[in-house]
């Protein structure tokens, strides 16, 4: 009861605070924190669902209206949540270390980029870009392409384990990026480093502004992805994946077909990335190979592990934390220091305005992120929201 009141109060209070101080990063973090609180608090299920739906469907867009930046953050968080959930299947559930995950994202992104822009005319003569409505069809195309590429990568590496698998997937990721960077000749498929633009945006019903439209689209996809993830995890498919992670050989001896299960894991994981790639390319209007580097793969992996391997809420929280940390907290912090500096604030007798440019805080965001990763691993290696083995209702024997 107390918790229910507390949860409702927190969501309301923080939402009010964001509306009142639309530029304060701290306040927005509080809003995000209140959602986590709602998720964790012991409140009736209907209340939790209602509060989360209220926050994500109503409050977030309204707040986004006050500050478009928040909506952008929320959209990017959504994109990374889907990626993290996809990778979570491969790494967290099936235990296959994939260091080239962003390749599938790239495949999806390029599929719409090429056909949703005039670029395809170079190859096929004319008739492009496709009508913006095709975007929705390409969500499916991206999904299938992602899955197909995932299976394709899975095939040669089935026999490989652990770090051998890691290096091959890493290589695969690089191959895709280098191909994207170089396939502007002999045939111009990807336009190389110059990238592809302008990529059509989908038609939106009711003239919803694009920022809100993309937010809702991403939210919808994330909800679907979470649902699919939960259904897979809680079925013979998910149990087979986990068995493979625990002991591949014993799993096979118990009747789990390794090849099929592993390919299914690669395919499912990759399909989420493929579909989000399509959304990403339309949202950005422009893509080039710089968005698909090895570091992006590492970033998604860090989200999965930071959140708690194999845990769906973990992947969601991990993706949120990393994205918010990178785009908001560290940035907000360095902007704040910059403001102090511009205002000439004096700390311990030292005027911040004299701070040499070498110590510009904006330059050290990555360093702080690195340190946070290390500290998190040392003090909470199981992740933020680790898997809780669910006690099952036993059947009547």
């Amino acid at each position, binding site marked *: 009861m107390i918790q229910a009141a507390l949860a409702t109060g927190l969501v309301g209070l923080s939402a009010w605070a964001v509306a009142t101080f639309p530029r304060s990063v701290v306040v927005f973090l509080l809003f995000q924190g209140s959602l986590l609180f709602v998720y964790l608090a012991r409140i009736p299920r209907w209340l939790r669902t209602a509060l989360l739906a209220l926050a994500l469907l109503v409050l977030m867009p309204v707040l986004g209206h006050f500050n478009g930046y928040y909506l952008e953050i929320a959209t990017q968080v959504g994109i990374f949540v889907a990626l993290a959930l996809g990778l979570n299947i491969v790494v967290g559930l099936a235990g296959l270390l994939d260091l080239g995950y962003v390749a599938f994202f790239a495949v999806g992104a390029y599929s719409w980029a090429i056909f949703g822009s005039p670029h395809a005319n170079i190859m096929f003569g004319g008739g492009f870009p496709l009508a913006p409505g095709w975007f929705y069809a390409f969500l499916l195309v991206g999904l299938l392409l992602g899955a197909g590429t995932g299976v394709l990568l899975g095939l040669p590496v089935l026999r490989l384990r652990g770090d*051998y698998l890691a*290096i091959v997937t*890493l*290589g695969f990721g690089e191959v895709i990026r280098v191909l994207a960077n170089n396939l502007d000749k002999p045939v111009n498929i990807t336009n190389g480093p110059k990238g592809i633009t302008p990529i059509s945006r989908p038609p939106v019903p009711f003239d919803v502004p694009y920022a809100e439209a993309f937010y809702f689209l991403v939210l919808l996809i994330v909800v679907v992805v979470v649902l699919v993830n939960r259904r897979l995890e809680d079925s013979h498919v998910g149990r087979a994946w986990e068995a493979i992670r625990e002991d591949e050989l014993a799993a096979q001896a118990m009747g789990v077909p390794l090849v099929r299960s592993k390919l299914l894991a690669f395919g499912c994981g990759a399909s989420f990335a493929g579909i989000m790639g399509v959304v990403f390319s339309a949202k950005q209007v422009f893509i080039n190979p710089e968005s698909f580097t090895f570091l992006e793969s590492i970033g998604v992996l860090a989200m999965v592990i930071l959140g708690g391997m194999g845990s769906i809420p973990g992947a969601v929280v991990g993706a949120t934390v990393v994205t918010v940390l990178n785009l908001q907290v560290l940035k907000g912090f360095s902007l704040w220091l910059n403001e102090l500096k511009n205002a000439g604030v004096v700390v311990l007798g030292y005027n911040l305005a004299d701070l040499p440019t070498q110590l510009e805080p904006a330059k050290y965001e990555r360093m702080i992120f*690195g340190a946070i990763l*290390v500290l998190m*691993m040392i003090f909470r290696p199981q992740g933020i929201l680790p898997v809780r083995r669910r006690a099952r209702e036993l059947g009547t024997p």
Partner: protein
Amino acid sequence: MDLPLLVGIFPQVFLDGLILGFMYALIALGYTMVYGVLEFINFAHSEIFIVGAFVGVEILLGMRAAGWLEALPWPLVLLLILVAGMAGAGLLAVSVERIAYRPLRGAPRLIPLISAIGVSFFLQDLIRLVESIWRNAFNLVYPTMDALNHRFELTETIDVSVKSLVVIAAALAMLWALHALVNRTKIGTAIRAVAEDQAAASLMGIDVNRIISLTFLIGGAMGGAAGVLFGVQYGLINPYSGFIPGLKAFTAAVLGGIGNIPGAMIGGVVLGLLEAFAASYLSLLTGGAFGAEYKDIFAFSVLILILIFRPKGLLGEIVRERA
């Protein structure tokens, strides 16, 4: 197609590949030794490697400022920076292990990997911070030593510089020394024992923590030496330039069979040769349709092929699953 040209540059490309390969081999040792003992990819090794290069360049720049660079004979200078680079990188590797990896021993395997990635990010910008304050620049250039740049022209298209020879000689010497250390000394026996079974080794009276530190020291030192040689050979370093060679060296270690010291060496040389040949020949052979930019694709494709047929690398044991 210009056949005499293709044939004419062959020895030169081979030599280029060999030098690059030895460089990879030296870095790969750091990965492979740590992997052999702890079964974990020390992702931060590429930064440890580049720290070696930075220690070397700082000493060289300091010596040049003091006017010693010209006064001392070059082999002495080289030896000095090699030793300093090795010491610096080795000590850094040990402290990284102590701070960021030791508390995680026994955790699931991916946990230290993420920690290592964190260390890698941290170190890159830490080097930059330190160098920015100290020199107000973080792109540092190795001072040229003219004696090292002397070239022997063998034919019109082929030549060898003194520094290339130095790189090969130093790499071979260090690989030999490491091999001897691991296989012929008591410390080496202890390292191998810990690699085999930590618990059993500790029951035999081996201080496992000390041996693991030692492994990091040796691996780091090898990386540091590679860093110095890298700087001498290619000239320009910055805090981020360790990343790509590190990735390649890791690939080399896996190619050779990770955890296997001769494997790291062979993997390095194979990868170096592959890259060199791909970069030099792809464009010539395809008439410019594919060029040097495909060298990584080429190298990775060969890696994947090799791993399909030998899933544990070139020198790794052939997998036999035991029930």
